[in-house]
């Protein structure tokens, strides 16, 4: 660009540090301290983006986080590229690369702009209305819609950057370091309290940063000097911490806030290296002071979205802070006195002001009078009806307003210009206040929502509380903060004051054209116009929440920071409802978008969740085991040999366990130590079967229900002594069973003397099964007589391995003769290795969870969570035998007699055999009695477990089927994608129905 829009002097940029960067492939220059926006404007570039839906040319509207238009894609790298970044917030650095998004082939010539000409047929709800039918084609439509309407491109590679989390506690948190925030911080810091002051911008000073130093004056200083002085005094105080580039994303209850601090995004690549990119702060503050300022409103007229139409306050900031003029020939359009400060700033720098268009009848404000005295032309009671120009404004069409402001009268006046500053007044930034649960009220005279009620220890000061006059802000902040913090710090600040005129508001400006011919944008980012809102109201939408969703107004990445007030205003005008009664939509976190990286922090890869490993874990690893995640546990899944696949390994392991000997690591099973004089009574109440008569040294299988009668957990419990039991739970259920038992003990049965201790991690469990298991145990464990009569099935003995005591239970989950050795966890691996050594001569084979599942399925044993899903009663499992009829009560008993649990036609667990013994069913497949050509078919149930049984040499499955208990021998069907599988309902026990093997 040959045009240089940088002023020769002024601004806070460092003119000695020249920075080169790329925009849309072109190399440009800016200075240290520039944002991407200010640097582009200095190069005369306004056109930076295409709009979401109509692909209209868009430029900068604002200068900060409120910017709706100028969102760009940063970085080329596939891992580091970042979409939808506001150019107004990016500080330039050497080597920065940015691109326009949502345009093709370029931002200058975008083919999809054709949408703009079709816009009359692309109104609100267009997609809902048009692509409803035929429903089948939606997937095809969706592809094209998503392609043409959209934002930037997501990174496709893993984020290489480092992110951090930090917890912080303070007595006073102050959000925003504008005049109100700095004043509040000074009071708080002087009081000796631990203070944290944060601002989202790189610089402090808020609205003062862009202020005209000829007009604004504090303590006889220019605004910049006052900010400098206040900041340097503040940072000298030890009890205050000041953060910049830190945006508060969320304000939760109990003064819990989430903030994101940008640490390196503004540095060049070399300085970024090995540094943390962003830090997420989780702050608990005793007291919070909101000084979040306000957001200037645009004006709503035809083509108000053209590049070169900018908020007056933004133009002022570019001029005074960055030394950039946004145009050479300016029209200002206002409804308040604040825009006159911009006029004076521009005039002071020698920039031609063609006219100020003011919708008000008059104003006697000091700034207005100053403009008049400088000879600046003011058109009172006039409005802009249209902006002309396509990729850049080139003229404003102005007309006189009628007396009632409802229409325009007289002739059109065309004023050529290359910049139109708009100022529609200020909206308090109440986003964080409402996030925290605060209630707003609407000021019908000043046309804004302000903080009204909060139940938190919280205060709003300055513009976010609806105070815009600098002198009043400082004065009011002193009074409020002194009361809030119970301090008595005197206000010695002297602020130059001037008289201000009134403010007049028209939400949707009248036009000389019929409304269908007008494109007045309300939500710039989502391309929602005033007409869209009118249409929604015509179509019967009344609630603001519905209008918002139908028109998508306020739903873009800027969350309606610019759009919301006008949308509400237009609805209020048309529906003749007061704004206060209309209410606002809900502001939700985050205030500005957060990165996933910052949210995730260090919790990636192995730190994502806790990993629990058994004491034998490294044996499994060393012996080539594949692992399966069971909750947080890593469990050996299978042990492939000689490049076996999973199927082959599991077949081999399952066969060996029945024919010779198998060994399983069962350490992950939950173990709860239960002691106390009422331990037996307690078990009676939590399990469905009876426990009082269980002899010492005996084991029993138990089923635990929820109070609703549904199976909750199962496991074997062993009576170690008169008042001492050890309960095992499923691996996944260990923690919840423990807390459920504690719950009943503490809240329902506090009279029971029972103590529970979780000992899951304290014991390692080695399970050895198979015909040779007894011989192996005899070699490994001393002090136990393993003869069948002396140590029968379902009993327990204490033994010794190398002087270390261990507990041995003879219990079986495979249906084979089987022992479980429980030993203090540290010895787990040694005992495992001893068993392997002792079992060598019997071809002992380690088997994993998959073979374990297969073996128990052959035996028809259920797995809670596989055969059950929270809707299954013991009766449904055909396990009525385990439910005591004699016991007066146990958890869930009464529910087993509810009409629903007793009704006919519930699903029951059964076995399934396939017609073709080699056909293995898919777990989860649906079962039907009658095959139809196409769905829907009446579904009877589904397959819960399915395997090829190497011991039975056929496919077996477990399933839950409606009325299954009465269907034995019946032929049913399983419709798959390309075939139908025929199955026969069978008994659920496929292997050793008599139980002779486990009693051997």
């Amino acid at each position, binding site marked *: 660009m040959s045009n240089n829009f940088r002023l020769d002097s002024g601004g806070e940029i460092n003119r000695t540090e020249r920075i080169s960067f790329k925009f849309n492939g072109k190399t440009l220059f800016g200075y240290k301290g520039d944002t991407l926006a200010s640097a582009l404007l200095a190069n005369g570039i306004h056109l930076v983006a295409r709009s979401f839906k109509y692909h209209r040319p868009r430029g900068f509207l604002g200068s900060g986080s409120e910017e709706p238009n100028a969102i760009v894609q940063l970085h080329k790298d596939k891992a580091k590229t970042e979409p939808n970044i506001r150019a107004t917030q990016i500080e330039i650095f050497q080597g920065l690369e940015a691109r326009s998004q949502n345009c093709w082939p370029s931002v200058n010539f975008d083919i999809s702009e054709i949408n703009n000409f079709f816009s009359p047929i692309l109104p609100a709800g267009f997609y809902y209305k048009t692509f409803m039918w035929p429903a089948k084609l939606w997937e095809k439509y969706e592809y094209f819609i998503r392609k043409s309407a959209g934002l930037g491109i997501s990174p496709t590679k893993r984020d290489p950057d480092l992110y951090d989390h930090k917890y912080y506690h303070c007595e006073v948190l102050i959000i925003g370091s504008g005049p109100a925030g700095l004043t509040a911080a000074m009071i708080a810091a002087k009081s000796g309290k631990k203070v944290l002051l944060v601002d989202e911008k790189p610089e402090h000073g808020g609205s003062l940063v862009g202020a005209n130093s000829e007009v604004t004056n504090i303590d006889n200083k220019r605004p910049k000097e006052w900010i400098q002085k206040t900041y340097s005094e503040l940072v000298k105080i030890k009890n205050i911490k000041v953060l910049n580039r830190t945006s508060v994303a969320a304000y939760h209850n109990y003064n819990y806030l989430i903030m994101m601090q940008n640490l390196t995004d503004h540095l060049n690549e070399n300085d970024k290296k090995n540094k943390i990119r962003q830090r997420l702060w989780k702050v608990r503050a005793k007291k919070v002071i909101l000084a979040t300022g306000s957001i200037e409103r645009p004006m709503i007229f035809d083509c108000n979205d053209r590049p070169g139409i900018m908020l007056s306050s933004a133009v002022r900031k570019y001029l005074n802070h960055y030394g950039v003029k946004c145009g050479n020939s300016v029209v200002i359009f206002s409804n308040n006195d604040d825009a006159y400060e911009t006029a004076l700033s521009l005039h002071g720098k020698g920039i031609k002001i063609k006219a100020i268009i003011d919708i008000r009848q008059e104003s006697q404000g000091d700034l207005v009078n100053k403009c008049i005295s400088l000879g600046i032309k003011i058109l009172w009671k006039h409005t802009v009806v249209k902006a002309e120009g396509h990729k850049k404004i080139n003229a404003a069409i102005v007309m006189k307003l009628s007396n009632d402001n409802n229409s325009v009268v007289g002739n059109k006046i065309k004023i050529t210009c290359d910049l139109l500053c708009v100022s529609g007044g200020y909206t308090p930034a109440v986003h964080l206040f409402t996030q925290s649960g605060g209630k707003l009220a609407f000021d019908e005279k000043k046309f804004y929502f302000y903080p009204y009620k909060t139940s938190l220890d919280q205060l709003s000061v300055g513009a976010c509380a609806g105070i815009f006059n600098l002198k009043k802000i400082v004065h009011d902040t002193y009074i409020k903060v002194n009361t809030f913090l119970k301090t008595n710090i005197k206000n010695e600040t002297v602020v130059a004051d001037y008289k201000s005129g009134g403010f007049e508001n028209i939400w949707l400006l009248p036009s000389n054209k019929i409304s269908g011919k007008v494109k007045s944008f309300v939500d710039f980012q989502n391309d929602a116009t005033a007409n869209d809102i009118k249409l929604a109201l015509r179509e019967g939408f009344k609630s603001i929440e519905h209008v918002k969703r139908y028109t998508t107004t306020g739903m873009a990445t800027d969350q309606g920071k610019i759009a919301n007030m006008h949308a509400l205003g237009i609805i209020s005008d048309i529906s003749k409802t007061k704004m206060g009664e209309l209410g606002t939509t809900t502001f939700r976190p985050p205030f500005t978008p957060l990165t996933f990286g910052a949210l995730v922090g260090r919790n990636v890869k192995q730190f994502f969740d806790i990993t629990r490993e058994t004491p034998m874990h490294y044996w499994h690893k060393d012996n080539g085991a594949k692992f399966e995640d069971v909750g947080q546990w890593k469990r050996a899944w299978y042990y492939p040999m000689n490049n076996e696949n999973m199927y082959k390994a599991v077949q081999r392991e399952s066969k060996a366990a029945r024919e010779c000997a198998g060994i399983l690591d069962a350490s992950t099973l939950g173990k709860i130590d239960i002691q106390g004089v009422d331990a037996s009574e307690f078990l009676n109440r939590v399990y469905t079967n009876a426990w009082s008569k269980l002899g010492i040294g005996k084991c029993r299988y138990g089923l635990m229900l929820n109070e609703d009668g549904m199976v909750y957990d199962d496991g074997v419990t062993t009576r170690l002594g008169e008042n001492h039991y050890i309960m095992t739970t499923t691996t996944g259920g260990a923690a919840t069973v423990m807390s459920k038992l*504690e719950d009943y003990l*503490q809240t*329902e049965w506090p009279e029971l003397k029972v103590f529970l201790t979780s000992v899951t991690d304290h014991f390692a469990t080695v399970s050895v099964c198979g015909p040779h298991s007894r011989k192996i145990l005899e070699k490994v464990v001393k002090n136990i007589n393993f003869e069948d009569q002396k140590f029968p099935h379902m009993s327990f003995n204490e033994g010794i391995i190398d002087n270390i005591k261990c507990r041995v239970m003879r219990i079986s989950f495979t249906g084979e003769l089987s022992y479980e050795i429980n030993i203090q966890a540290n010895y787990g691996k040694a005992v495992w290795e001893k068993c392997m050594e002792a079992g060598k001569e019997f071809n002992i084979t380690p088997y994993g969870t998959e073979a374990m599942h297969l073996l128990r399925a052959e035996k028809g044993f259920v797995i809670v969570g596989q055969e059950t899903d929270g809707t299954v009663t013991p009766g449904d499992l055909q396990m009525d035998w385990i439910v005591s009829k004699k016991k007066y009560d146990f958890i869930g*008993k009464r529910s087993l*007699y509810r009409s629903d649990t007793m009704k006919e036609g519930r699903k029951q667990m059964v076995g399934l055999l396939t017609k073709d013994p080699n056909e293995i069913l898919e777990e989860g497949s649906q079962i039907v009695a009658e095959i139809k050509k196409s769905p829907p078919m009446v579904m009877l149930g589904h397959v819960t477990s399915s395997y090829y049984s190497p011991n039975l040499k056929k496919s077996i499955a477990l399933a839950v089927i409606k009325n299954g208990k009465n269907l034995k021998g019946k032929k049913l069907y399983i419709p798959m994608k390309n075939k139908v599988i025929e199955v026969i309902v069978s008994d659920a026990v496929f292997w050793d129905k008599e139980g002779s093997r486990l009693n051997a």
Partner: protein
Amino acid sequence: MFIIKCPYCGERDHSEFSYGGEAHIVRPKQPTELSDDQWAEYLFMRKNIKGLQYERWNHAHGCRQWFNVGRDTSNDKIHFVYKMGESPPK
């Protein structure tokens, strides 16, 4: 994210606790004597109050004790905590 004052440990972060539903629902002493409707009343029916609600909390990642909390569900303000078996403060 509340701060809850465990009656045994003092003020702790919300994340240390787990919620246990409405408080003062006593498990019937003789469930078998109840009609289906009466049992359903105990099993399923909850008040779900907007306003001051008595509820159970467990200091799951702390002392593991259950206790009662009086919380205003409209603004999450906790008005009081008291131990199991105690009556709510008047």
